[in-house]
C-alpha cells in the first residue's frame, strides 16, 4: 500500500495545515486507490450486520420511547462505522471497552447482552451489570470522567501482565473537559495500553464543533501528550478499523497510548428529548446523508457480491427478532423495588442504612 497516510504521522502536522482524514472506502463504496481492507470478507459482513443492528435498535428505541416504553437515550445513527470499526479491532476475550453513552454496538461486540443496555435506559439499576467476562465498564454520563478511569484500567491490566488493550470512547464535546487532558497526559507518561477514540460527530447537543475548539483537528492534541494522533474518516468502517488496529497493535506491543479522532456526524437529535431542528442546519445535515456509513459498506459488499437482497432480508429479520426478543424479556422483568436502592451501595449495609431500608420498606407497605 503506497497511499499518503504515514501510519501515525498524523495528517494535522502537515505543513499546509490541511486536515484530510484517512480514508479507505470512498462514499460510493469503492476502495481508495491501492487500499487493502484490513477486515476479511466474513469480518466485513459481521461488522456490517452489527452496524445494521445498531441502526435498527436506534429506530426501535425511538419508537418505544415515544410510546413511553423506553427512557431517554442517545442513538448511534450516523456513527456506526466509527463505533463498530473501532470495536472490531479488539479481541473481546482480553481487551476492554470503556464507553461514553453512545456506543451500543461496541458493547454488544464485547458480549454485553442487549437486555442489560435496555434495562439501563428503562431506568432499572440492574442494567448496570455487565456479566463477568464481558470486558466493559458501565456507560458514563459524567462526560470525560471515563477517560482517566480507562487509563487506570489499562495501566492496572498491564501491571498484572495481562495482554490487554483498553479502547475508550469520548465525544468532541467531552474532549473540552479537563479530564480529557489529564487522562491523555497521564497515559502518555505511563505508556498505558489505551486507545482514545474521540468521536467528533460535529455536535455536543446544540454546540457545534466550531464553538467547541479553535483547533483545526482535535487529534492535533496528541503531540502535547507525547502520543501519536490520527485523524480518520469516521464514516468509513475500513479506515477506522485500520487506524484503530494500528493503535491497538502499538498498545499491545508496549508502545503506549494513541489518540484517534474519527470525523463523523450525528444524523439527527442528540437524544430522544432533543429537537435538533432548532439548531442543526438542514443543509449540513443533508450534506452528510450521502456519506451514510452503512450505505457505504453495503455498497462495497454488494459490489463484491458479499451481500445481496436475500442476505439483506435475512439479516434484517434476524436483527428484528433479536430486538423484539430483548424487548419482551426486559418488559417481563419484575420491576425493581426498595432492595435495589440499597443493594450494591457497599459491601455491607451500615446500621443506619439498614434502618433506612427497613423504614422505607415499612412506608411502602403502609401506602
Amino acid at each position, binding site marked *: 500500500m503506497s497511499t499518503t497516510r504515514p501510519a501515525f504521522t498524523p495528517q494535522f502536522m502537515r505543513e499546509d495545515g490541511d486536515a484530510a482524514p484517512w480514508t479507505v472506502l470512498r462514499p460510493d463504496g469503492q476502495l481508495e486507490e491501492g487500499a487493502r481492507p484490513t477486515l476479511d470478507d466474513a469480518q466485513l459482513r459481521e461488522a456490517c450486520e452489527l452496524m445494521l443492528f445498531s441502526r435498527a435498535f436506534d429506530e426501535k428505541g425511538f419508537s418505544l420511547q415515544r410510546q413511553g416504553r423506553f*427512557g*431517554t437515550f442517545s442513538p448511534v445513527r450516523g456513527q456506526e462505522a466509527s463505533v463498530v470499526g473501532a470495536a472490531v479491532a479488539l479481541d473481546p476475550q482480553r481487551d476492554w471497552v470503556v464507553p461514553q*453513552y453512545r456506543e451500543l454496538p461496541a458493547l454488544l461486540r464485547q458480549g454485553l447482552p442487549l437486555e442489560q443496555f435496555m434495562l*439501563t435506559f*428503562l*431506568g*432499572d*439499576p440492574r*442494567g448496570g451489570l455487565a456479566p463477568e467476562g464481558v470486558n466493559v465498564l458501565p456507560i458514563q*454520563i*459524567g*462526560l470525560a470522567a471515563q477517560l482517566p478511569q480507562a487509563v487506570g484500567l489499562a495501566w492496572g491490566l498491564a501491571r498484572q501482565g495481562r495482554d490487554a488493550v483498553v479502547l475508550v470512547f469520548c465525544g468532541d*464535546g*467531552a474532549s*473540552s*473537559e*479537563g*479530564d480529557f487532558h489529564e487522562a491523555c497526559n497521564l497515559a502518555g507518561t505511563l505508556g498505558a495500553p489505551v486507545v482514545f477514540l474521540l468521536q467528533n460527530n460535529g455536535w*455536543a*447537543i*446544540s*454546540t457545534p464543533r466550531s*464553538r*467547541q*475548539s479553535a483547533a483545526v483537528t482535535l487529534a492535533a492534541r496528541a503531540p502535547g501528550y507525547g502520543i501519536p494522533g490520527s485523524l480518520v474518516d469516521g464514516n468509513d468502517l475500513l479506515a477506522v478499523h485500520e487506524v484503530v488496529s494500528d493503535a491497538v497493535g502499538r498498545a499491545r506491543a508496549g508502545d503506549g497510548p494513541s489518540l484517534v479522532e474519527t470525523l463523523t456526524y450525528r444524523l439527527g437529535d442528540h437524544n430522544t*428529548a432533543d429537537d435538533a431542528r*432548532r*439548531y442543526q442546519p438542514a443543509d449540513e445535515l443533508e450534506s452528510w446523508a450521502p456519506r451514510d456509513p452503512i450505505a457505504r459498506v453495503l455498497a462495497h459488499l454488494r459490489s463484491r457480491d458479499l451481500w445481496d437482497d436475500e442476505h439483506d432480508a435475512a439479516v434484517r429479520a434476524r436483527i428484528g427478532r433479536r430486538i423484539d426478543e430483548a424487548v419482551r424479556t426486559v418488559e417481563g422483568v419484575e*420491576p*425493581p*423495588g*426498595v432492595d*435495589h*436502592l*440499597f443493594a450494591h*451501595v457497599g459491601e455491607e449495609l451500615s446500621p*443506619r*442504612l439498614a434502618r*433506612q*431500608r427497613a423504614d*422505607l420498606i415499612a*412506608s*411502602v407497605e*403502609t*401506602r
Partner: protein
Amino acid sequence: MSTLNMLQAINATLRAELARDERVMVLGQDVGRLGGVFRATDGLLDEFGADRVVDMPLAEAAIVGASIGLAASGLVPVAELQFLGFSHQAFHQIGAQLARMRYRSQGRFPMPVVLRAPFGGGVRTPELHSEALEAQFVQSPGLAVVTPATPADAKGLLQTAVRSSDPVLFCEPLRGYRLVTGEVPDEDCPIPFGRSRVAREGDDVTIVAWSAAVQVAEKAADVLAEEGISVMVLDLRTLVPLDETGLIEAVAATGRCVVVHEAPLSAGFGAEVVATVNDGAFWSLEAPVARVAAPDTPYPPGRIEDLFVPTVARVVAAVRATVKAG
C-alpha cells in the same frame, strides 16, 4: 401579575436583567441557539446577541473560572450549569475561588456572579442529573445558596442574585420547571436573601422545606388538614444566608418540627435545620425534630426514584408521629 411557571419566570427575569444592565451576560452550555436544554434562556440570544448570550465549550470549570474573570473585569456573568450534578467538575472553582475571591483580594474583587443550575429528582433523568447536592455548597463561605420553590420567588430571588455583588448558587427545581405555576408580579420585586416564607399557616407542627420539597410539604399539609392536624409550612428560600430567626420562631410557635428534603439524610441541610432549631428553640420543643429525606444511597435510576425521593405519604407519616410524640 401574570401566571407563569418556573421556567417562564426565570426566562422573563433573565431577559429583564439583560435589558436593565448591559454588564449582565448569560453563558453556559447550549444556552444560545437552543435556549438551554430546558429553554430557560430561550430567545435571549436573538434579543441580546452572541456577545451577551454565549454558548460555551463543554467545560464546567472554565465556565465558572471565566465567570470569575469576567466579574473581575467589571461584568456580571449569569452562568448556567446544565445540571447541578455537573457542578462537581467545577467544584474547585466555586468554593475555593469564586466564593473566596472577595476575601482573598480584601474587597478589591467582589464577585457579582450567579450560577444557575437545575437540580432535584422525580423526572426520570439519566444518572447524575437529579442529585440534590445543595448541602455540599453550604460550606463555601462567601457563597449564597438560593433554592426558590415558586415562580414568584424564582423571579424575586433571581433579581436579588443578579444585582448582588456576591456570588450566588441559584438552584432551580427541575421538577417544578413546568409543573409549578403561580402568580408573578410584573414589576420589580427583588426578595432579600435570608428571609424565609410562611407558605401556609398552621398551629400543630411546622414543616420546614425548600425547593421542590415545599410542594410535597404543602400536599402533606392538605392531607393532614383533613385529619385535623394544622400544619405550618416554612419555605427557607435561601440556605445561605439562613433565616435563623424566622426558622426558630416558626418552630417555637408550634413546638414540633419536621424537615423535608430531597438529599440523602446524613449531613443533608436538614441536619443544619435541626441543629439550628436545637440551639434556638430547644426549650419550646415538645418532640424531637423529625427529618424526612432520601436514604443514604446513590440517586437511583428512574424506575425506583419515587421510592428514593421523599413522598407526601412519608411526610404525612412523619408529621403524624411527631404530633403524637411526647
